[in-house]
């Protein structure tokens, strides 16, 4: 059976040449088929409804799509060329009609972020159901909370204190429990990254990154999603900053510390390629209209289980960095 692809990420298309390359199905789910080629080209097939991202090829909706994807066996051979992707000889994705989707984030932002955007995000957070430990840490409960809330005008962004309650439960009910350790670790790492960035000390930033790569729940560990959000915001708002460039450079060797799907997303992020909803969200913040931010945030948080929320947390974390000046002692981090 042959299905037409509607849209394909520019970074995938640019890698595909006329000569076909072989690979194999890395994994398959109802809404995803991941393909790993021998030359380390990574491709994800999705039906419409899954937002575009740097490895995404969106195929036309077919009835029983999920069934169809699930019939693709893990590890079965795949052949990939500019024209078509062949999966085990049973399913072919034709790329003839695929439109190119540009995955590069255009970093033409002014570098000025508006506090108004932060306020809007606060409100959104109040309304949102928060699953992400990261968002909690960044939004007001981690060790970074004091600095954050001071910056955000002293308000508890979550408002109802629900977040605080859960951390206490985690810390209280199970002493030294996994959840508490996770929350503490996230808190420390995020705090370290934020403060060190403000002080422009590269080594501790990378130490923070190292603690976050591969950390936490999900197929793409939450820590990685957080980093993608953080990297994305930094890339967008501080594109010309040499310090940012050095940090990205230093991060490159660290991103292999996770599983394959996540590794590719991080690698792409360092090159300036991001999932559509994240790019859209960053543009929305730049424009600053509160409705725009709201709808873009909604789109972003709908990504994956907590992936979008974790990315949002990453963006938020970078906004904190950029909108405050460091008060901590530089020597402490050096």
């Amino acid at each position, binding site marked *: 059976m042959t299905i037409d692809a509607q849209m394909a990420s520019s970074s995938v298309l640019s890698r595909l040449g006329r000569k076909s*390359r072989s690979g194999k199905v890395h994994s398959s789910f109802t809404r995803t088929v991941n393909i790993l080629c021998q030359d380390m080209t990574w491709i994800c097939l999705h039906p419409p409804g899954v937002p575009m991202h740097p490895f995404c090829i969106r195929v036309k909706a077919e009835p029983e799509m999920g069934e169809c994807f699930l019939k693709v066996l893990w590890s079965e051979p795949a052949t990939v060329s500019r024209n078509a992707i062949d999966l085990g000889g049973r399913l072919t994705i034709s790329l003839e009609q695929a439109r190119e989707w540009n995955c590069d984030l255009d970093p033409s932002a002014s570098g000025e972020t508006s506090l108004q955007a932060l306020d809007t995000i606060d409100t959104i957070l109040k309304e949102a159901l928060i699953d992400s430990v990261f968002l909690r840490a960044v939004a007001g409960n981690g060790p970074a909370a004091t600095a954050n809330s001071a910056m955000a005008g002293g308000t508890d962004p979550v408002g109802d204190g629900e977040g605080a309650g859960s951390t206490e439960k985690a810390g209280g009910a199970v002493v030294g429990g996994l959840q508490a350790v996770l929350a503490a670790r996230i808190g420390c790492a995020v705090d370290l990254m934020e403060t060190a960035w403000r002080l422009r000390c590269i080594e501790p930033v990378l130490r923070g990154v190292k603690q976050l790569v591969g950390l936490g729940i999900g197929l793409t560990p939450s820590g990685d999603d957080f980093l993608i959000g953080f990297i994305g915001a930094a890339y967008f708002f501080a594109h010309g900053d040499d310090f940012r460039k050095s940090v990205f450079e230093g991060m490159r060797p660290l991103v292999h510390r996770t599983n394959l799907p996540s590794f590719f997303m991080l690698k792409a992020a360092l090159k300036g390629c991001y999932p559509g909803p994240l790019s859209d969200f960053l543009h929305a913040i730049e424009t600053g209209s509160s409705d725009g931010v709201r709808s873009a945030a909604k789109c972003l948080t709908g990504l994956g289980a907590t992936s979008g929320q974790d990315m949002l947390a990453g963006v938020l974390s970078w906004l904190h960095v950029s909108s405050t000046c460091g008060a901590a002692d530089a020597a402490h981090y050096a």
Partner: protein
Amino acid sequence: MDSEMDSGMDKLKDLFSSGLVVANLGSDVFSDAIRTQDGTSFQVKWEIPCRGDEKLFSALELLRSREIDTSIEQANSRAVDILNESHPYIVGVGKAIDDIPGMADNLILHAGPPVTWDAMCGPMKGAVMGALIYEGFARSEKEAAELAASGRICFEPCHHHGTVGPMAGVVSPSMPVWIIENKTHGRKAYCTLNEGLGKVLRYGAFSEEVIARLKWMEATLAPLLREAIEIGGEIDLRTLIAQALQMGDEGHNRNRAGTSLLIRELAPAVVRSGASDADKAEVLSFMHSNDHFFLNLTMPAGKSCLDAIAGIEGCTVLTAMARNGTEFGIRVSMLPDRWFTAPAPRVDGLYLGGFTEEDANPDIGDSTICGTYGIGGFAMAAAPAIVEFVGGSPADALRFTLNMYEISAGESSSFRIPALGFRGTPTGIDVVKVVEKGIVPAVNTGIAHKDPGIGQVGAGLVEPPMSVFEDAFEAVYEHFKTRMKEEP
């Protein structure tokens, strides 16, 4: 020299002139690379031999050295041939004291390797007490326990007397027994008649109803069956088991088809017997109401065949796996006088309503003779219905059986599995392969309550302790080492 080389060149010529087909052991990068060049490569599952145990692996290397390996190979394939040639029949119904060799008035047989009264588990003790009450040696639980502990009663494994028993496997002198004969090798084996499900002696229950049922079996069931076989003639068990496997049984935990087939064989003769209509009806409905009636025939069928391969020099095939609720034991053909034992494992299973793992007794019974014989757990693929009962899927059933080929010396010529293209079941568990591959035989089983008198509480899967196979393996190794010294 030159002619030798010429014959050599043939193999290389074949390679150059046919398509390259590779089995890849190790990094799958190479498999992938071959496939991208449109070549064929099968990625082989590989695990460190002997689970990475250096000492065992050194022993394995010796056992796999050409000479020894060949002699083991020959002995094992002979064992498989014997098992395949074996042809068990039901030849009659007798009485333990009259028919079982070496049976004595004060002797109680039990399942598994040898065990003393003190070391017996709850259900085993319950079954022994029940048997003593049934025999009239004791009137109460207390009396029975005192008598059992007094030393006046002897205990020996069924396996030492050509007998096998499910669960507690208790056989006392006046119990009726099936008499099975492996006609090819003239070996006889014995087993009690199956009492049914629920509260039964084999699970250690000994209430009045249990004793009453045993009495009825002795007085009514056994004589009628004996007469029926006399009228209808001996029954070909190998064919019955083979058919049952085609009908969704595996001969251990599922015996519904086998029981039905047996009733079909027996019914005309039962009707023609001299018993009263009421008795005939009761006997037929007793068999009908008990899906496991046939189990007590597959087990001695296996025993009569496996006894024929005991004591083959250099043969590393198991002749028994058995558990007494305290210990799990195995016997190896080439070391016929030894048991290798370890504490009986717990059963991983599903429980009947109201019972939990807490209530379970460790693994018990001689019924693992089925797997040893190439049915039971080894024929799971034939019985997809039972995996549900142990919490798996039909695919698991196939996997179970496929896995067992890895540790078997051969395949059955009689018992075949429809789902595997009528491939013969894996037959003859090779203890060397078990240790080499780190795969223990698949065992499915019932679960007895740990306290005497309660009965069955569930069913599930058991992973036999690897240490018994490792111990046997080392004994095999020592044997060959000694042999090598003796014949320089």
